[in-house]
């Protein structure tokens, strides 16, 4: 008697077609989104999750293959992350177990927290373009940011003479810069003379994460900045790995984005 195969009989060509069609269908749909977030670290993922939960079409562009940025590990490559109160409430929302270390300070497993955050963003409906590097901004009248120009990440790693690969543009109503200290999107506007950033503040002030949250918001028409990109944009003091600030900043970026979109709708009406 012939042994029953565990997996169904599918040829290589079918696998390839499935990948191409799946990718092309989704990518074509997300060539135009409500919000494009550049960077899939904790603040970008949080912003994406919150916006997608409100029914918005959200695409997160990430230059790495993996999502989560530095959220997998805490200080000194140790995979315990810390959050200060009230950010433990977000861990509650994400259903991430945590321990109280001292009053107002909590620890959680980095892999658990990060994977739950990624899963929440996916569950909410966020789509991802990973291995995709931000190249430039799409500008409209009045220099309003209206999308991003992207390319494959590997293109940036190859010698110039064999990489004449033009980028492509994706459009959105709002772009969120969640690229960390690099603040790539904001810096691109600065390169064009549209905006002047502060540069990263050199002095250490241990409790500056409040500032990151308070300064999260629209930095230029169509462009919201969140996470550590806020620090670079405004030249705020440097600080250690404080993920609570990143999560709350992502949440605030989503709130600010919703306000802007509401304003845009009213303007059109």
């Amino acid at each position: 008697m012939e042994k029953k195969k565990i997996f169904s009989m599918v040829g290589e060509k079918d696998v390839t077609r499935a990948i191409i069609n799946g990718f092309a269908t989704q990518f074509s749909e997300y060539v135009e989104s409500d919000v494009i977030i550049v960077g899939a670290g904790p603040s970008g993922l949080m912003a994406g999750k919150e916006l997608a939960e409100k029914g918005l079409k959200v695409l997160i562009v990430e230059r790495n293959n993996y999502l989560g940025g530095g959220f997998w590990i805490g200080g000194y490559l140790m995979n315990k992350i810390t959050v200060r109160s009230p950010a433990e409430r977000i861990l509650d929302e994400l259903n991430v177990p945590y321990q109280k270390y001292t009053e107002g300070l909590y620890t959680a497993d980095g892999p658990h927290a990060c994977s739950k955050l990624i899963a929440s963003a996916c569950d909410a409906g966020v789509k991802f373009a990973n291995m995709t590097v931000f190249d430039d901004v799409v500008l409209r009248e009045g220099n309003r940011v209206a999308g991003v120009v992207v390319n494959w990440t590997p293109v940036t790693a190859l010698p110039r003479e064999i990489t004449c690969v033009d980028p492509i543009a994706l459009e959105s109503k709002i772009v969120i810069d969640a690229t960390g200290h690099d603040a790539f999107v904001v810096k691109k506007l600065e390169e064009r003379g549209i905006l002047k950033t502060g540069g990263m503040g050199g002095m250490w002030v241990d409790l500056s994460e409040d500032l990151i949250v308070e300064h999260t918001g629209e930095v230029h028409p169509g462009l919201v900045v969140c996470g550590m990109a806020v620090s670079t944009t405004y030249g705020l003091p440097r600080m250690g790995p404080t993920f609570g600030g990143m999560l709350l900043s992502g949440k605030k970026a989503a709130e600010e984005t919703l306000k802007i979109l509401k304003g845009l709708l009213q303007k059109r009406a």
Partner: protein
Amino acid sequence: MKELIIYEEGKIYPVEGERIAVEIEEDFGIRCKFMGFIFKDLKENEKRNLALEIAKTRVKEIYKEKEAVPLPMEIAYEEKKINGEAGYGVIYDGFMLSQVLLNFFPFKRGEEIRVLITDRLLATFDTDMRYHLRTCILGGGWNIVSTNGLIHAPARPKEFYFARRLLGEKMDEVAIREIEEVLGDRFLRENDPRIFEVLKSLLLQAFFYSGFGEGFCSDKDCRLFNPHWQEEVINSLVKKRGELGLCEKHKEMFYRLKNDKN
């Protein structure tokens, strides 16, 4: 003798302005008045103008001394602070901020010494071509004393920095708290009751600066010592030694100033 007039803003750790004014009068015999929140009488348009001017004094680049070009969010942040909302961490050029205060709140410099006690972090550009955090800015019009500067500007005990170097800049909060526990009361923290006495010493320095153009002393046991380490802050500005807590030289100068101006 000039009158010491104190204003406050922001989240001030145990300052208790009224009590500090009473103790300055009782301890030193200096006329002193606490006026409360500095921005309370500003009109809306004045608040907006002031917010813009304060935003320009932000230190954005540690190695460059220049007026900042503020972004809208920064001006909005300053407006919120002018309206009394707490929030700190932004670093301001102390001398520029003092000048802004003088422009908006001029006073008779021959009759008064004005001091703002604030939660803002202050820095000055030094001869090594970079900004350094300061606890206070004396002279140049308004004197400014920073409660958060008291916590962040003077260096903590050396062990703290050895640990930071060992663990790298990514030393996490758990490690910071453990090191802080080991260091005990060797540095000032938020809500530290010793801040009250430190503020009195800094107000005395403002008084001396106004009288002699110099507010500091090189004697570590004098209240006018300019500390660079937290342990020096505690030794010089908290612990009171002898009459007035001043060295012999400054005690004599203090009485001369009082008698001359009376």
